[in-house]
Structures are given as structure tokens and as C-alpha cells.
């Protein structure tokens, strides 16, 4: 069904006021952390290239099909890398929820509430990260470019499920946060946990693409971050998830056709 259209944009001319911006956007602190995560990823990729890495790689992740498996193991230092990557990739899409938590908390406990939200949110992804080595082993057991094509196809199929759409919509839900005391702590943690679970349901398949991606990890990271963020920001869930599904299918065909995409 077609909807009404906006015929003109609305340019607003307002005087910039830094403290007002900070009050309206308490999530700016989290944005700094996310930026730092990206800087760390870029530095790691740069260092890897300088020291003879096969491609601009990701910390703790394989840079070629020959050496991906062990690096994913949390025991081998992979978990911090996983957290870093989660912050970088999921952070931009989650800023809205972090800001919501701040704005709907008493001013003196805004940072605390946002931190609680973030810890609970990250805990979900850390738990998922513990399963990644096993997934990595399975994916890399598939020979040739088939692994990447398969994961991309599964991710495309997941995009079209009602569960995916429900999870994506769940990421947009706010929460009624109690203002103070243990209820406030519990409320922020619960909100973070719920948002993390919805986010996991939305993005787990896209994150598995990172496992199968054979090289050029930084490009994959940037590209998928763009997809995840766009999917979260654009307010048309059905059309957006379908568009991403088509894109993933196209990438799957390209992977098969070219052998190793972006290598």
C-alpha cells in the first residue's frame, strides 16, 4: 500500500549550543566509545598489514582461509576482540536506545542507567560470542567459496522470516524505567537485556557472515555495520529487510562466481 509522501524537507536554522546538544543527546558518550572501537579496529588492521598480514584483517579474526579457526576462541584472546567488534558494529544501531535510557532517567543517574543498559546488552552478545568458535569450525569445514555463499544465503533467508521482522521492531520498543533505587537498576538492566536479545535476533546471521568472510575483514565490518545501522534507522521494516535479503543473495552469487569475494 502506498503511503503519503513528504513533499519538502524542512531545513531548520537553529543556533548551535553544545551543552544543550549534550543534554538532548546523552548517548554522545557512548558514541565516543564506539568511535574508539573503530579506531582500534583500524589500527589493528593497519598493524596487521605492516607486519605482513595477508589482508587488512580484524583482531582475533582470520585474515585468510588458512588461519581463521583458533583466533576466534575466547581462550586465545578472541573474546575481547569479539566485544570490540560488537561495540563497533552494533553500537551505531543501538545509540538510539542508549539515548532513550538516558533521557528517561533522572539526570544524576543517566550515565549509570546507560552503563547498565550497555552492560546487559553486551552480555547477550558475549554469550553469543562463546558459541562462535563452534560455528566457525562448522563454516570452515565447508570447502571453497561455498561457506561464504551458504552463510550469505542463510542470512538472506533469515531476513525474510517474521521472527526477524519482530525482532527488528522489538529493537525500537522503549521501556518504562523506574526512576531510582534497585528497581531503577533492574529496569535499566532488563531493558538492555531485552534490547540485546532483540538485536541478536535481528543480526546474528549477519554476524556469522563475518565468520565466513575470507578476507578484507575491515571492509566486511564496515559494510555490515552500514547494513545493520540502516536497517535499524529506516522505519519501513518490511521493505528494508527485503532489500537487505536481495543484497545478501546477490553477494552469495558473487561469492560463488568469483571464488572469494573481496580477497
Amino acid at each position, binding site marked *: 500500500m502506498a503511503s503519503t509522501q513528504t513533499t519538502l524537507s524542512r531545513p531548520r536554522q537553529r543556533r548551535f549550543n553544545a551543552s544543550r546538544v549534550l543534554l538532548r543527546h546523552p548517548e554522545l558518550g557512548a558514541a565516543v566509545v564506539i568511535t574508539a572501537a573503530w579506531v582500534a579496529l583500524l589500527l589493528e588492521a593497519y598493524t596487521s598489514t605492516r607486519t605482513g598480514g595477508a589482508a587488512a584483517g580484524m583482531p582475533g579474526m582470520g585474515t585468510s582461509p588458512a588461519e581463521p579457526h583458533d583466533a576466534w576462541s575466547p581462550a586465545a584472546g578472541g573474546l575481547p576482540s569479539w566485544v570490540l567488534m560488537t561495540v563497533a558494529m552494533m553500537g551505531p544501531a543501538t545509540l538510539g536506545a542508549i539515548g532513550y535510557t538516558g*533521557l528517561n532517567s533522572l539526570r544524576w543517574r543517566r550515565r549509570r542507567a546507560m552503563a547498565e543498559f550497555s552492560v546487559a546488552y553486551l552480555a547477550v552478545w558475549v554469550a553469543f560470542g562463546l558459541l562462535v568458535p563452534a560455528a566457525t569450525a562448522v563454516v570452515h569445514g565447508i570447502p571453497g567459496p561455498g561457506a561464504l555463499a551458504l552463510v550469505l544465503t542463510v542470512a538472506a533467508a533469515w531476513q525474510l522470516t517474521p521472527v526477524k521482522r519482530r525482532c527488528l521492531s522489538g529493537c525500537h520498543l522503549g521501556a*518504562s524505567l523506574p*526512576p531510582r533505587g534497585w528497581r531503577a537498576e533492574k529496569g535499566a538492566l532488563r531493558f538492555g537485556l531485552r534490547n540485546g536479545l532483540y538485536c541478536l535476533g535481528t543480526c546474528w546471521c549477519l554476524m556469522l557472515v563475518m565468520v565466513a568472510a575470507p578476507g578484507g575483514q575491515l571492509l566486511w565490518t564496515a559494510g555490515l555495520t552500514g547494513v545493520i545501522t540502516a536497517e535499524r534507522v529506516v522505519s519501513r521494516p518490511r521493505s528494508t529487510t527485503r532489500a537487505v535479503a536481495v543484497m545478501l543473495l546477490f553477494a552469495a552469487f558473487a561469492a560463488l562466481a568469483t571464488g572469494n569475494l573481496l580477497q
Partner: protein
Amino acid sequence: MTDPFVRVDVWTLAEDDPIITAYADTVAAMMAKPISDPTSWGYQAAIHGIDPGSPLPPGVSQLLPQWNQCQHYSWYFLPWHRMFVYYFEQIVRTYMIANGGPSNWALPYWNYDGSGQSNTLPLAFRNQLKADGTPNPLFTAKRRRYINTGAVLPATDISLVNAFDQQTFTGLGAFGGEETPAPVQFFLQNGQPQSGALENTPHNAVHDDVGGPGGLMYSPYTAALDPIFWLHHANIDRLWGKWLQQSQQHTNPSDAGWQAQAFLVDGNSAFATASGGAIPGSSALTCAGIMDTAGQLGYKYDDDAQPSPGATAPPLRAAAQAEAEHVNWPSPWPKRPAAPASPSPDAVRHLVGATDRPIRLVGETVTVTVPIDERVTASLRAGRRAAEHMHHAFLDIEGIDAARNPAQAYGVFVNLPSRFTDADLMAHHAGNISLFGIELARRPPTDRHPHNLRISLDITRLLDRIAADGTWTDGSQLEITLRPSTLGAPSGREDLATDLADTAHPDVPITIGRIGIYYA
């Protein structure tokens, strides 16, 4: 230029006035047309809404893109409905003239806030049969019980106090609604509500009161099928003009995007011409093109020269006086700045207190206490920018949800005395909780994320009022009462009072996540 058509108060007309009888005849004729005809009753109602989950009406193989276009919870609520009613009126008038009806016909309005019986359904809409024994097209049984008997709308559901308390069109809880980035039905952006004070009360509450559970008016999908819908919206349209008249400070948004906004579907206007033809996008009305109803649209209201009775209500006068006298709110609230900042949609809102557990409404009165956080108010008082505050307070009802609309409005009152009079009810009334449209928010008919509802009520002048009259002395907390609205017994039918009170016990509970108080 020809004289504008005049929309008149339906309660000033006799039941057999040609304005009413011609409307009834045209409604009957429109109802007889197939829904695929843009000039039919079904098509016009479907522009506002039609349930995509219901079986398709006969004559169409799919829902048309021109349907389900109504704008609520948006700063486009008022302009969209003005256009909608305007085009409908053209269709009705054109049919009438072609069939020998009055050529000067204009849609009457239902001024439920008028005098006498005006707070009851107009007589011509109540009876199943006309005086000549034929079916009355203006009647429908799909209304709340006893509405067709003359049950009285609750004073707080039709109160204009909160809407006319508002000094700006745009903003949270302001008269016309918060800035909305695009025309989207039941918009909720970043958890912030976009509906305006007039949309909240009387608009939503009257929909619930007239429709009742399962009636036509209680849902946007069916509301415009009830012939009284159009008179209700003519009144909402009239009240927009009354608010603008009330003060020179009351203005429509100057925002270029709002002014240029047209409502298009596939390049054409969402509405149809009087003969049912398409209106090309280049000729579609914009918000800027409908500001002057007499000059641009060719109609006016019969009471344009008079102040609205609601706009001069005692609570409004009391609030204005309190503001003029520079009344401060009791400690720990910040003192009123010497020159408060102008109300602005950009204002930063600070949470100063909230309830800490969900509330369930099942038809009973609920009172909760919201403690005001002294650490926050102290920082607001001491802050570098304390003098720049608007000195505005907002009451937000957050996370409102229900399986469907129980068609039961709840009045929201601040510091209502335990023993109160009717005057107290009006003076302490902040607005209403109505779930009109919850089904569109929970299951959007277009490609949108589902969400629950949130209502923001600007309680600044209410606090001014109760601070000035001395009933609010303890600023460390606010007591919020949620009271089900009950229709009054029809005149001469006091025996129905118990039955009417019983209808305030809906079987669909409403849950509220939190009540928050904000200061800006």
C-alpha cells in the same frame, strides 16, 4: 468573490431543517453507491481508515492505496482532517445541488461544549426512523449504549481548558502536536509522542464516548462510517480557528516543510474531487493553502465573531492570572525565571519524577503519588542555564497498552482533592487517556514498526492554577488520579445512571508503564 459557505451549530437547527434533511438524504445516496466509487460513503470513510484484517468489502479486489491515510499523533492531524472534511463537504454539496437540495449547504458542526443539551448527541442522529417512518440514515446502532438515548458526555471529555491553555501549536503536549518528520499514522519517534492537546481532548475522548466498545466511532478504521463523525471533525476544525483567534501569540507552524506539506498517494492527492476525480499532485492542497478557511477554502463558522465559551472558562482565566502575578510553584521546584524562555520544541526536558511500577486500569479510579526528585530540581535551580528554562512542566503517560481499545477514556487529574466538586474536576484536569487508534499503533496497516502509546500533557498552567489558589503547597510530590469517564444519564432518564456507571468497567484492561513528570 462569492460569500463563504457558513457551517452552523447543529444544535441551533430543528430536526427537520433542510440542512439536516438534505444531509440525511445525501448520506443515504452515498451509502447506496459501491465502495469503489470515490464519492461513496464507504470510500470516503476508507480514506480515513479501513481494517486491513477484515474481509474485503464487495466490489474491490484489494485495499486501495488512497485508503488508510488518516493522520493522528502528528502535527498533521489538524490540517489533514481539515482537508478531508473539506473535500467530503464538496462531494455532499455537489450531489445535493444536482438533486435539488440547498445550494448554500455547508456541513454543520457539533459543538458539544455549547449550552443546554449540546453535550448530548444531536436529535436528528438518535432515532432509527425518521418522522415519516422511513429509515434514518443518520442513525446507527453501532454507538455506545444510551448515546442514542441522549446520554451526556462527561465535562472533562469535552473540556477545552488544556487545549486552550497551550500557547504554541508545535511541541510535546502543545495545541497541534509535536513536529513529525513525515505524514505517518500514529507516529511515535524515539519514544516521544507527537499528538497535540486538542487531539487528546476533546477529539479522542469524544470518539470513545460516542463509539463505545465495538461501535463505529471508537476506531479510526470505522469512525468515518458514522454520520456524526463529520460533525465532530467540523467542530475540531472550528476549535483550531478559535484557538488562533484567542491570542495573537497563537499561530500555526511557520516551518517551511509543514507549510508545503501535501498529502499525496502515487503522485495524486489522497482526496478526490466533488465528482470523484483524481486531483493531480501539482494541484493538491498544502497546509499553507488551507490556513484561511474563508479566503482559501470558501467556508466559515457561524460563531467566528464570538469567543469560544471554553476559551473563557474560569480555569483558563485563573491560570492566566497566576502567570501574570508571577506565582511560584512550591519548593523544591525551580522559581519562575524573570523572563522564561519561549516555549520551543527544542527545549530540553528533564525527568524530575516518575512512578516506579506499572499501573493497571480496569475501570476503577487509581491514584498514584509521583515523588519529585530534589537532586534534579536542585541542579535545575542552580544550573548555569536556570534562567533560560521555559518553566514548563509535562505529565507523560508512558507505555500505554491494551489488546484493543476498551473505548473507555480516563481523566487525568493532578492533586485532585479527596472530596471534590465539579469545579475541582475541571480545575485539576490535565487531559485524558484514550486508546483511540491503539490498533493502528500495535498493528500498523502500512510498513511501520508497531508500538504502544505515550501521551504528553502540558500541565504548566494547571500547576500555576493550583499554586495560585493555595491547594498545592507540598511541591515534593504530585498526586495523579486516573478516573474513568462516565456518561451522565439523559435528561428525564436518571434511572439509567447505574447502567451508565457500569459501562465504565471494561473487560479490556489498560496497562501503563510509567507516569513521568518532566520540567523544561
